[in-house]
Structure formats: structure tokens, C-alpha cells
């Protein structure tokens, strides 16, 4: 886990990591959220809707933005304050996702950073993009 203090942050500072989506993660999210929509549980239904297989929960993949700021940028001293999020393409189970973020703005008065972030699949296709607002608290 990174432990950036406020004074160590700068615009352009970037981090990224990769995660492979698994059936287990999808099942855990189903139990956690209670979202039983068949697009995420029934392959036939998903194919009939025009997708190649069941679609990974968007909020499952976007949970990786929490990891981005809570573990990497800024890490330990992060306080997530808000996020603007767009889902651009579906993600599927077994996709390998690359989560990347870069600080785009620092508000000195309130010690708040904005992180421009994105998730791409292994083929380089954009899955989602986000603008994440995080406070940086003192230990």
C-alpha cells in the first residue's frame, strides 16, 4: 500500500495495476449486492441481449477505482469524496483489466486531489472512465 502524504502529491503522478475478473468475484458481488439481474447470471439471457456472455457487474469493476485511490493514489491517507463514472463497454468474466489513474488537479486549500482514471480490458478496449475526488487526511 502506498502512503503518499499531501506534500508528496503532484499533478501527473500516476499508478496502475491489473486484476483478472473471476466467476468467484461475480458470485461474491451477487451475494453482496442482491442484484440478480440475469444479464449477470444467465449466459443465454446475455447472448439474447446481444452480449457474448454474462456481463460483469459494472459496479464490480468500478470497485477497482476504490482500490486505485485507497491502495495506490494516494493510498493509506485517502478519503474518497466522490466519483463521476461512465461505463463505455461491457467487461466479461476472465477479462484481465488494467486500472490506471493520474492526478489531474490538486486543491491546496482543502487538500483534495482529483484523479482521472480508466479501466481497459486486455485488448485495450476502454471499459470505463472516471473522475475521482479524494481528500488526503493527516495520520
Amino acid at each position, binding site marked *: 500500500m502506498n502512503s503518499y502524504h499531501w506534500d508528496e502529491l503532484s499533478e501527473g503522478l500516476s499508478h496502475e495495476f491489473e486484476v483478472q475478473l473471476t466467476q468467484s468475484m461475480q458470485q461474491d458481488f451477487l451475494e453482496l449486492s442482491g442484484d440478480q439481474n440475469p444479464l449477470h447470471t444467465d449466459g443465454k439471457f446475455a447472448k439474447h441481449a446481444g452480449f457474448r456472455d454474462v456481463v460483469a457487474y459494472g459496479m464490480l469493476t468500478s470497485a477497482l477505482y476504490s482500490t486505485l485511490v485507497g491502495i495506490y493514489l494516494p493510498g493509506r491517507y485517502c478519503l474518497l*469524496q*466522490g466519483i463521476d463514472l461512465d461505463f463505455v463497454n461491457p467487461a466479461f468474466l476472465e477479462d484481465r483489466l488494467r486500472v490506471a489513474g493520474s492526478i489531474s*488537479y490538486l*486543491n*491546496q*486549500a*482543502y487538500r*483534495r486531489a*482529483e484523479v482521472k482514471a480508466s479501466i481497459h480490458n486486455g485488448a485495450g478496449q476502454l471499459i470505463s472512465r472516471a473522475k475521482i*475526488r479524494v481528500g488526503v487526511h493527516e495520520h
Partner: protein
Amino acid sequence: MPKMLSQLEPIFRDILDNSRLNLTRESNASNVAGWDSLAHINLISAIEQQFEISFTLGELQELRNVGEMIDLMERKLAMR
């Protein structure tokens, strides 16, 4: 409407999610619905980025309304 006020109004409408908000120099957190502490940070962040200026915490703590913010912004913009 003065130019700066007309430039700020859409920012406030967007962040406070109120398309009918009529911003005046007397507007402040006490008389504008939804202007809470987190919205305030969002407003300041948006203004800093749009106008390419920055505020210190001390400057912000002295502001009592939008009019005083506009006066501060105009002083900063004039110094560039």
C-alpha cells in the same frame, strides 16, 4: 447580470444540481439550498480549474458570500 456572476451561475447550478438557481452577490451557504461543506469544496475546485486561479484556506475562510468571492477572483485575475 454582471459578467462574473453570469460565469459563476452555471457552475453553481451544475454542482448544486439546481437548474433554476439564481445566483446573486448575496448568495451564501445559508441561503442557497444544497450548499453544504462537500458542495463547497466542489464549487471551489470547479472555480479554480475554470478560471485557472487558486485560493488559500485563509482567503476562503474570510468570504461571506458570492459577492466577496467575485471581488477576490477579480483581484487575482487582475494580477495575472
